[in-house]
């Protein structure tokens, strides 16, 4: 019963995939490539590179891709459903308790201490996205020659966001279009 198998495997990935994104790639690989042979290692590598080029969480991308390969459109639906179901159950329970106790001073005081941690985490995400965009790697240990086009696009995007309060999606569309134009021009001169 391939549908049930798809559902259960991706439910496991959804359940044990802490930390999001790249942190759960080894777990997905061990199930999908090593254990069930649904994809070859080469295909899995392709899938990761496609995931970087398309929007959405890697877990959902993998579930849809593998589901379609193994069980057609319904396989994709079942695998994707499996990958989000643990989150829906667990996070809904957390949301219930959060709502219930949010207004108590205990939870409120605790969350006030957590807020700067979240700000620091978002700051580190900004840092690694900048490194990835400008130096082609998010690790400070392996840096390429800086990409000056990306650097200027980030700088201009940042100024535009702060000064003119454009919506983030507008800025992303603009830098995407500017990227296409600039990289093209610099590739022919």
């Amino acid at each position, binding site marked *: 019963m391939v549908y049930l198998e798809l559902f259960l495997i991706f439910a496991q990935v959804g359940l044990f995939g802490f930390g999001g994104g790249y942190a759960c790639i080894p777990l997905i690989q061990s199930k999908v490539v090593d254990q069930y042979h649904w994809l070859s290692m080469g295909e899995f590598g392709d899938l990761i590179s496609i995931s970087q080029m398309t*929007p959405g969480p890697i877990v959902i991308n993998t579930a849809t891709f593998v589901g379609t390969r193994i069980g057609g459109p319904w396989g994709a639906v079942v695998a994707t459903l499996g*990958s989000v179901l643990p*989150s829906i159950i667990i996070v809904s329970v957390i949301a219930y308790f959060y*709502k219930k106790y949010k207004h108590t001073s205990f939870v409120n005081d605790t969350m006030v201490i957590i807020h*700067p941690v979240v700000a620091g985490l*978002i700051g580190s995400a900004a840092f690694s996205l900048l490194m990835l965009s400008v130096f082609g790697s998010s690790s400070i240990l392996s840096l390429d020659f800086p990409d000056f086009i990306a650097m200027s696009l980030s700088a201009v*995007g*940042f100024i535009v966001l702060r000064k003119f309060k454009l919506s983030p999606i507008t800025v992303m569309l603009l830098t995407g279009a500017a990227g*296409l134009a600039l990289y093209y021009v610099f590739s022919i001169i």
Partner: protein
Amino acid sequence: MKVAVKKYLSLFLSMLQLSAFTFGGGYVIVTLMRSKFVNKLHWLTEDEMLDYTAIAQAAPGAVAVNASILVGNRLGGAAGVFVAVLGTVLPPFAILSVLSYGYAVVQNNQVVQWVLQGMQAGVAAVVADVTVSLVLPYLRDKKYRSLFVILLTFILVAFFEVNIVFVLLGAFVIALLLTAIRNKKDGRA
């Protein structure tokens, strides 16, 4: 009744739009949700969004899905969760369903590559802008302890590459202890 339908539709379309632009991991959708639900629609407060970011990151599963569950639950209970998750999952589901039949066209396409590089630079700017918005109030109010926590978190994650889940769980434990100690002191006084 009509108002409720309109709200669910708006939630669904918002998540659909944000998810379609989530390149570069869970923090990107969290920052996009902040600009949409906190700054534009005023459905959530800044503090709630920070709480949701911490919970979404610490819970198992994809950050984007977890955050959409929290926002959906807050705005419309179980139906809100369903609508928000559907909106979040559909864009990657649709794209990967198509690409699973043949991805070579996209993978080695120079035009796609250039647009993505431009958008990546834009994403970095978006997350950097949010970081500045989050840190500024602490600077303005001269909350040095919070600023220290921000810096410490940033250094741990960006330079020492400590797993985000450990950072958050550690922070939760410390925050709970601090709050408990403070409450006990206040009780005696």
